[in-house]
């Protein structure tokens, strides 16, 4: 496949300029860049989901026009999007053949479809039970369904957009195996990702985009994360973590004792000091998110107790928790965090409206000034009012959620996957802010699947496994190995 001088703009703003890109058959081709660099747009153009304004697309030397995803599939190009397009209530096999059903005279040929499904599984070496309802599958299994769907249509080129963004580490490696085996069987994979290490480990070639320009395409073997970051940002940038802070007090802000909410988590005990960042590590599904939500009052717990600043915490809703000075940045910023059609000001001040209200009316200038101060501190260079947060980049959206709890400094911040789907620059900024907040005495409970965050930011880590605390790791023995072992429930050496 070849792209020649592709241009695309949205309302006068260039998203892509003069992109020339050749993709060799049978390779894994990484596509990287910061948020806004244009990599997803390019991916969508290749998949026919967006049409370029200018330029040509050639497949096997012949020029093609891809007028839609369906049309692209006819040319052998399939897309596995970041937001999966499976139908949750239908079975695996129905999803795989959706829109491509084998039928004769209006009647489905169920047996032929089963035979073909078995063939597919055999040929590509991975399996998902055909009759399971897709909605009940884990994310990685759902991705397999999407991949099978493109394979069922004989796609030769498969575009994967941020496939591991929401996957826990062990599922991600399952996915890597699949991607590699597809290459082995002659398929071409275009792999769009934020994760440099992932791309370097898998891809044969890497293309770097920056501000809609193609910076460079080179063999992955000659690159390191450092060289890629330099190309992406146009400058050298350390993915370093700020120096760790130390707790500023000895009376814990949060004490959790024997907390249970069956079946999500059981008998969990730990504490967080003011100024301390405690990591809550473990696999996705180990009960971390549910634990955070229960402390915040978003869900009930069934037994155990929580003490906040030494006093028994009795919250029946987030509203109560907020009043006491507890904040939560939830796991999914779009589903649980933001009111997407409202502006930065509304999103940041929603929990604190009462404090900007005089005689029943909101004091708009005061609210705006306060929001602007926080936005400035967070370096969000967008108007705080009038612009729906839907239109912000992922990094800015995450900063807005963080800003929500900086408006009136929360005493305890529970923050769940703070850097998921966020570009390198914003990631770094978020680390610095978390660190700063801790320095000012905020107690932070950091739920994260990213090992480097747990290691780089946290004073201590509580590792969960299957709803229980597997291990608590103090600064001294907080290492990648110990976290991983605890997450998988393996015995420590010498125990």
């Amino acid at each position, binding site marked *: 496949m070849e792209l020649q001088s592709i241009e695309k*703009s*949205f*309302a*006068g*703003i*260039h*998203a892509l300029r003069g992109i020339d890109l050749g993709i060799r058959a049978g390779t894994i081709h990484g596509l990287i860049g910061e*948020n*806004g*660099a*244009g990599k*997803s*747009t390019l991916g969508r153009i290749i998949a026919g989901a967006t049409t370029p304004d200018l330029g040509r697309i050639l497949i096997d030397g012949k020029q093609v026009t891809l007028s839609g995803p369906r049309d692209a599939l006819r040319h052998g190009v399939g897309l596995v999007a970041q937001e999966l397009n499976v139908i949750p209530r239908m079975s695996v096999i129905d999803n795989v053949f959706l829109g491509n059903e084998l039928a004769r005279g209006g009647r489905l040929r169920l047996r032929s479809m089963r035979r073909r499904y078995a063939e597919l599984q055999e040929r590509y070496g991975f399996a998902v039970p055909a009759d399971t309802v897709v909605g009940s599958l884990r994310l990685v299994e759902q991705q397999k369904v999407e991949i099978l769907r493109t394979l069922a249509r004989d796609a030769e080129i498969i575009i994967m957009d941020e496939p591991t963004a929401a996957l826990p580490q062990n599922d991600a490696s399952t996915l890597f195996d699949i991607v590699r085996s597809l290459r082995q069987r002659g398929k071409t994979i275009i792999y769009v990702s934020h994760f440099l290490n992932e791309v370097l480990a898998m891809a044969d070639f890497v293309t770097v985009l920056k*501000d*809609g320009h193609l910076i460079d395409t080179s063999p992955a073997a000659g690159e390191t994360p450092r060289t890629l970051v330099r190309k992406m940002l146009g400058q050298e940038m350390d993915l370093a973590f700020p120096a760790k802070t130390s707790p500023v007090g000895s009376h814990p802000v949060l004490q959790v004792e024997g907390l249970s909410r069956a079946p999500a988590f059981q008998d969990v005990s730990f504490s967080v000091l003011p100024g301390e960042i405690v990591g809550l590590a473990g696999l996705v599904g180990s009960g971390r998110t549910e634990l955070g939500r229960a402390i*915040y009052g*978003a869900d009930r717990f069934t037994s155990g107790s929580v003490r906040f600043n030494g006093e028994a915490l009795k919250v029946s*809703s*987030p*509203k109560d*928790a*907020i*009043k006491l000075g507890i904040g*939560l940045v*939830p796991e999914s910023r779009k*589903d*649980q*965090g*933001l*009111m*997407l*059609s*409202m502006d930065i000001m*509304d999103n940041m001040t*929603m*929990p604190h*409206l*009462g404090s900007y*209200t005089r005689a*029943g*009316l*909101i004091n*708009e200038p005061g609210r705006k000034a306060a929001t602007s101060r926080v936005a400035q501190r967070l370096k969000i260079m967008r108007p705080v009012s009038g*612009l729906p947060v839907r*239109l*912000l*980049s992922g990094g800015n959206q995450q900063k807005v959620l963080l800003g*929500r709890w900086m408006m009136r400094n929360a005493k305890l911040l529970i923050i769940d996957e703070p850097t998921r789907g966020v570009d390198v620059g914003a990631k770094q900024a978020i680390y610095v802010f978390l660190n700063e907040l801790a320095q000012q005495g905020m107690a932070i409970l950091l739920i994260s699947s990213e090992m480097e965050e747990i290691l780089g930011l946290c004073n201590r880590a509580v590792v969960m496994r299957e709803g229980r605390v597997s291990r608590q790791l103090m600064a001294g023995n907080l290492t990648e190995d110990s976290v991983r072992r605890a997450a998988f429930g393996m015995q420590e050496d010498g125990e």
Partner: protein
Amino acid sequence: MIAQESGRAAERKRIAFSTGELGVVLGFLLLFIALSIFSPVFFTPRNLLNIVDQWAPIALIACAGTLVIMAGGFDLSAGATFALAGILSILATNVAGPVAGIVTGLGVGFLIGLVNALLTTVGRVNTFIGTLATAIIGRGIATAITGGFIVSTDSEGFAILGTARVLGIQLSVYILALTAIACTLVVLRTPFGRHILACGGNPEAARLSGVSVHLTRGATFVISGLLAALAGLMVASQVGSVQSTTGVGIEFTAIAAVVIGGNSIFGGEGAIWRTVVGVFILAMIGNGFTLLGLNPTYQDIVKGLIILVAVGIDAWTRKKI
């Protein structure tokens, strides 16, 4: 994607400006100017005030309906509340005087609103179905009470609400103006208003931001019940009689006005002024048919088409985003 997003922002602004913001105002003005040109009667204070007076009850229901829709719900019981409040207020007036009548009427609205609120929040019934059910029950009660007959009153005190004039202008005009201003203030300048939009936009995010979603949504239903009852009182007072079938379908006219004004039926955004403009577009169509001597049979067809255009614009601009 920053480039792409700012591109989208510009695109969205452009579309919003051409169709959303201006479209409805433009339509309103065109209709207004056209009617002023083609009918000598239209642009007279008397006719304009009559239009407002006549449509004030529907506008009240539509303003409250906008709040309900913004918060992510629907209230289909407004028509039933309208009738039942009118009937019971007349019956109460005949027994205990006009003040008792008005209090009874508003009480009915409050109660139906409260039932809707409880059903659709703690009761977890879908708002569409829940309020449809209370609407049917409400009409049933109205029929049972009246036995299918018209109830009427000759209390002069009760007639004040619907017929009195202050400075030569009908009371209903003042009531509508006050309600519209109050609702606008609520939406734009009160925590409750921000909470309404948050609940409609993303209830889970609203809850995690400390908003009481049940309380907020419930309150919109209570307001809707109260304003529907007030609308019923105004009509009952004006006409002096009500029956159980009064105002059938009025809730749909109100929802149509909300949509024609350019508000989203999916909640989370919108403006009261849009609804008021929507109401008066419908009103002018009705008035225009009468003044120009057009066959009124076609009125509903025109109104239906306008609803389709409004919803179509909403859907298509949404798709582009």
